[in-house]
């Protein structure tokens, strides 16, 4: 082996964030802002959240949904989740954010390593919920 690195994940890449949100079954629909604009969604008690992405998170047992936005203040900063975390939404929103970060890491890894000529050879989730992916050089 050559090196082992431990990395934290921050949502910084717009293309990877968009791909991840589109792939999440807990997102009932998604709005994507044009460059220089924002999209908005209502998020509880008359509040509206705005960002580069906006949509709704499905609540369990099909009993409604909660609006959210993902926004970053500048290209150098990470996306932040804006939503209504009041009451029972708190746990659902935390679960959604954790799932988003984990799926983003996988999507981002595939995108980034493809630029180096690597493709996923094997992907599986272990019984602790950790995702394992093996990548090898893709033959052209």
């Amino acid at each position: 082996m050559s090196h082992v690195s431990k990395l934290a994940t921050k949502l910084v890449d717009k293309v990877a964030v968009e791909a991840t949100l589109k792939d999440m079954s807990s997102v009932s629909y998604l709005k994507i802002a044009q460059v220089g604009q924002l999209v908005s969604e209502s998020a509880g008690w008359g509040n509206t959240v705005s960002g580069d992405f906006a949509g709704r998170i499905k609540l369990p047992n099909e009993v409604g949904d909660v609006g959210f936005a993902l926004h970053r203040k500048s290209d150098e900063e990470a996306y932040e989740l804006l939503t209504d975390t009041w009451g029972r939404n708190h746990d659902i929103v935390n679960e959604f954010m954790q799932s988003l970060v984990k799926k983003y890491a996988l999507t981002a890894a595939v995108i980034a390593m493809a630029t180096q000529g690597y493709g996923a050879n094997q992907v599986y989730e272990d019984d602790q919920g950790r995702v394992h992916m093996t990548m090898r050089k893709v033959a052209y």
Partner: protein
Amino acid sequence: MNEIEIIIDNDGTVIVHVQGVKGETCTGITKALEKILGGIIEERNLTGEYFEYPDQLANGGERVLA
């Protein structure tokens, strides 16, 4: 074999394990990954192959012509 193993924990922590790449090339391979994940390297351990010459220089720096 040149292979990369990536483990993603539930909190988004990513362990990247590059195998079979000699020399400084091995850290270059993962630069794009580090950038797209936000650039926070919490820990890095270089292993034996990192300190080896790439194959074409393994004979002490002389190029081998086929």
